[in-house]
């Protein structure tokens, strides 16, 4: 299994990467991590800079196309590779087929564990009330909804309480949160209200972008609720 580490995990949340590796080690699956990888180019693409994102895409394809299987801890990055890379190369048939080839074997973490490896129980235990946040791109563009919940259900002692509107955006939206902070915060505060109403002490998610956003606001508001990536939960 080849690890597509995601820039945010690489630089800010390496512990999530550590947890992912530990999960695969438990399954006896050897992990390979190309050390030349940098970024999938999503932020440039979402801001409309197609030429920059093409540069990132070509590099990604070159680094990863020989891998058998690629796994990533972020739904939005997988969305970028699987769904947007081919559209970037719409008029370049060679790159287009290379992009489709790579996209076809790139998986989001929970998608890979549950749908491909068909493993749900990792012997984890975490005696807390948890709630789960559905990241937008993971839910709507990759179609992952049940898989993380299945994984959570097998964690001993963990009580999953669904928050209201768990599938509503947290307000991150990449550069949206920086360019339109008031609107982003207003959306985020509604997410926080839902989290608090659920009574959970921990919010689990599959995308550190969202978690970073939620945790940042929780900290600013001095609320004791914690956020956790699903990989970290599975090694508890």
């Amino acid at each position, binding site marked *: 299994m080849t690890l597509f*580490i995601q820039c945010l*995990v*690489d*630089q*800010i*949340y*390496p*512990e999530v*990467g*550590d947890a992912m590796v530990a999960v695969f080690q438990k399954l006896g699956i050897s992990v390979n*991590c190309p*050390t*030349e*990888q*940098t*970024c999938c*180019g999503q932020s*440039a*693409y*979402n*801001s*409309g*800079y*197609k*030429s*920059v994102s093409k*540069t*990132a895409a070509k*590099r990604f394809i070159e680094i990863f196309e020989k891998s058998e299987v690629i796994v990533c801890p972020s739904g939005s990055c997988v969305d970028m590779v699987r769904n947007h890379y081919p559209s970037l190369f719409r008029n370049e048939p060679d790159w287009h087929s290379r992009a489709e080839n790579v996209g076809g074997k790139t998986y989001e973490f929970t998608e890979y564990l549950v749908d491909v490896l068909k493993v749900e129980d990792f012997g984890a235990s975490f005696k807390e009330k948890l709630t789960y946040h559905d990241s*937008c*791109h993971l839910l*709507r*563009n990759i179609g992952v909804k049940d898989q993380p919940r299945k994984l959570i259900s097998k964690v001993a002692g963990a009580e999953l309480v669904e928050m209201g509107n768990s599938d*509503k*955006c947290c*307000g*991150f*939206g*990449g550069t*949206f*949160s*920086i*360019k*339109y*902070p*008031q*609107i*982003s*915060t*207003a*959306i*985020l505060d*509604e997410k926080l209200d839902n989290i608090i109403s659920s009574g959970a002490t921990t919010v689990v998610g599959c995308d550190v972008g969202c978690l*970073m*956003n939620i*945790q*940042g*606001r929780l*900290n*600013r508001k001095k609320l004791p609720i914690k956020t956790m990536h699903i990989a970290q939960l599975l090694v508890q």
Partner: protein
Amino acid sequence: MTTISTEHYKNKAKEAIKDDVLQSALAGLQNRLGPATAAMYKNLPEGDELRYKAHEVRMFALDNLDMLLEQLAQKIRQRGGNVFFARDQKEAVNYCLEITRRRKAKLAVKGKSMVSEEIGLNDALIKDGVKAVETDLGEYIVQLAGEHPSHIIAPAIHKTRNQIGSLFEEKLGISYTNDPPTLTKAARKHLRDAFLTADIGFSGCNLACAETGHITTLSNEGNIRLATTLPKVHVAIMGMERIVASLEDHDALFRLLSRGAAAQNLAGYVSYIGGPALDSEIDGPEEFHLVILDNGRSKILADEEFKEILCCIRCAACLNVCPVYGKIGGHSYGCTYTGPIGAVLTPLMTDIGQSKDLFQGESLCGACQDNCPVNINLPRMLLALRAKTAEGDPRWNIKPSSPVEKFIFSIWSKLISNRKAYDFFFRLARFGQKILPTKNGEIRKLPPPFSGWTLDRDMQQIASKSFIQKWKETQK
């Protein structure tokens, strides 16, 4: 009819977010209609799949639009109706004023019509001495208050019953009450007088039928039916794309439209209108006019990237789930079309550069497409618009709008192309973050251009060693 600018958008959005009344109204609307619509698509006999069929039906209509419009016009004229093709809002308004002048009309009643808002019909009529009364209850309230609608289907969503009570007390001379049935009855009485004495009725068109030569109107209040059959003259205005080929197409689209708009199986009143009353017919207007409007739509049609937006049937389902609309409300958009549909349509119909906040101020969550009865890929088009402002496009008269941002991303492009450079940059950042104000290990203030983040959020520090760095060390 647009007042879009970055300043307007940001100020209005700020106001809206602070407005507790509006926030509560928007939350109520979205909580009521958002999830209900999604559930209703699922309980269709055909299931969710019907949306894909509807998408095809609409794209088919766009590909054959010239022939469909020709057929529609021919059939209506055969029945004694008039059809006018208006290139832009000026032509459309002038045609309407020609009619009101010729008929010496003093009073007009209107069914809710976004396209009539688009062309500024009401203002033109009033300037010309014709009183124009909106007959949809929400539009009526908004009109009395001298405001613009803030939602396509629920125009007065931003008003409380107390506000409406005071408004009716002032404008209708009734004693103050905030009881909705009483207020509705008061409006109904006033509107009934208007219906019975109006010289002319204006309506929009939900979806014309080319095959049979009809326009259609849908409502739950019955006001459009009264406005289009009681007065002696009926003028219907339609965006040129609001047409399908055959009657069978309406079945799927109406069922979807009603679910998208109001989470109901079908609207209460569905009317097909194909011309004026025939001589032997007792009911119906003497004159029927259909104004078919371009006003920038043909330019959108000619663009492969954006023609899909013309599939829209104006149900507002996207507004009902958009997290951004749910916070900033309709007035922040400063134009006729709001919400996700407005974020794509308005820039294309006006000026992309000036209205860039509409499509940049979205989180791209994708809820709009999921909720759209015809599965329009709104996120794709929001991204396409962003690409226009980033890299410019002479066809749409737009130059790259942010040279600083472009520069930053070009630097970023170089950094991600070389892991050594990338590592170096982050080593600098790791070092640099030490001088930023922190508390409990969290950064409290980021420098520009990231300072927006730390207005309301703390920021996790960059880790002392990157994952890749640690990996390299363990692999040795």
